[in-house]
């Protein structure tokens, strides 16, 4: 059962990801993106990470993508995207960045087996179950996030702030 569901979610997630890139209308891209995010949330549920799944749907699919949709519709975007496509040096740069990302992901995937990343599945699941019973689904994530990783957490917040400031600077009319 779990394997069937995993394959289903994985196919939808990958198909949706291709759909995002390949579809011509931005609204279709966005809906494919929502399908991808929802499938990833489904995979989280299969891993018993219910809280993460709920947050994935609540924040990404339910809030951020709705804002995307709002902007796409409000500005009626996507009719003349060809003018925005950049060729030459830019496409070369994009290829380099894509290659580097693939390298990092590949390294994380194949190089992780000896770092304890793939532990004994049943033991990890049992430990997780016990922790969820003890602290609740939210506590298991909240406690390390606000104790061990609090600096990283705050830095992430700062990163988002920087992004907002950058957006304001970019959107300001040039005088």
């Amino acid at each position, binding site marked *: 059962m779990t394997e069937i569901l995993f394959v289903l979610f994985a196919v939808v997630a990958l198909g949706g990801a291709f759909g995002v890139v390949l579809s011509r209308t931005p609204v279709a891209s966005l809906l494919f993106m929502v399908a991808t995010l929802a499938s990833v949330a489904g995979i989280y549920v299969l891993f018993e990470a219910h809280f993460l799944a*709920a947050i994935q749907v609540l924040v990404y699919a339910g809030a951020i993508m709705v804002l995307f949709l709002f902007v796409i*519709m409000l500005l009626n975007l996507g009719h003349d995207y060809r003018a925005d496509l950049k060729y030459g040096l830019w496409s070369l740069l994009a290829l380099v960045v894509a290659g580097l990302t693939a390298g990092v992901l590949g390294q994380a995937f194949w190089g992780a087996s000896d770092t304890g990343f793939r532990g004994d599945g049943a033991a990890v699941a049992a430990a997780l179950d016990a922790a969820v019973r003890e602290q609740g689904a939210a506590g298991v994530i909240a406690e390390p996030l606000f104790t061990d990783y609090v600096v990283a957490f705050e830095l992430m917040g700062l990163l988002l702030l920087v992004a907002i400031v950058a957006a304001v600077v970019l959107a300001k009319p040039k005088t």
Partner: protein
Amino acid sequence: MHEMNQLTTFWFWVIGGVKVLAVFTVVMLVVAYMTLAERRVSAFIQDRLGPNRVGPFGLLQPIADGLKNIIKEETMPGTSAKLYFVLGPALAIMPAVVTFAVIPFAAPLPTPVGTVDMIVADVPIGILYILALSSLAVYGIVLAGWASNNKYAFLGGLRASAQMISYEVALGLSVIAVLLLAGNVTLTEMVWQQQQLGLWFVFPLSLAFIFFVISALAETNRLPFDMPEAESELITGYHTEYSAIKFSMFFIAEYSHVLTASALMATLFFGGWDIPVWTGDDMFWHEGALIRGFDDAGAPIAATPSVLITLLTLGAFCTKTAFFVFLYIWIRWTLPRFRYDQVMHLGWKVLLPAALGYIVLIAGTMLVLDQLGVPFGLLYGLVLTGVSGVTTIAFFFFIDRDRVIAGAHGMGAVARRREASRALLARRAAANPDGSVS
């Protein structure tokens, strides 16, 4: 998850299937009869009779409506984006029918094969499941508005997305106060904590309840927040171009949301299926055993579930939910619609800061009580009730600015303003006795 302790896997699946079917059927039936209730109550409020011809007291009206909507001709606007036009109602109804699954509706029922929880799925994330899925509801409305290729529908869709994003924030923040006090996110545990506290959360968290009601009204697009379908401005907004069963699906979605929101108000703030005062119905799964409470030494007392208790608690849950459904209808036919800028002002400039401040206040009070070593019980609840009560009165004093509470006899701010303008006119007249315009 809990059933697995008691039921065998076979019976878990059988009973799970029966519960899914039963709850789905009941929710759909209640939704159908909510449309009748809405029409009868609105008629009562407006001194009319309402639909009373189809069957006794008009009881067969929803069935006639449903049949009509199924066999009517479906129109498909020629300039619409066909795929998204069909996808809209489907996406609107999907989250609406699944959210009820995590709401506990009665005390556990003893059966020959084991004790059955009266909840479809007791998922560990509880309320977050409802928040996550209802945040997806906006896609149906926005897509419908956009795909119709009609300016009114499009404006309705845009308004819906802006409004639902804005009020999701206030809704989430009002729920955080409940989470602080309950200490967990599952709805079964929230019911248990209210039984343990000896007070329903509406008393210690009165302001959070008011925020929740306001934002739930906005999230379900009901008056006074029905901006996405404001008839006087937008014809009917996002579903202007829809007909027959697709049109009806938007309504089924809206009423299911109203039902779920009412059930949530009952569960989060009014004890769920808890019967007030009587402690015989308190029940909770604690380390694999069903308990009624803890004795003075802290040892669990076993509970004795019975069919009678299940039926009584089911009755309590239905009564509370029905009251909030009635409240929804009552508000709709009493209050006028907000202007769009007022909706945004209320959401971002009043509810958001007020809810944030209230969370700080509740968390601070709980910290002080915990530091003083006050046990989680009636005294704990009463202190919070006092703090919340004062805050609630202050909040109303602030946003009302004696327009409503002072009533007609004093007219409060209105009278003062009239008085001030009269004094101004008198001063001008005194300074300029010959009446010439300077």
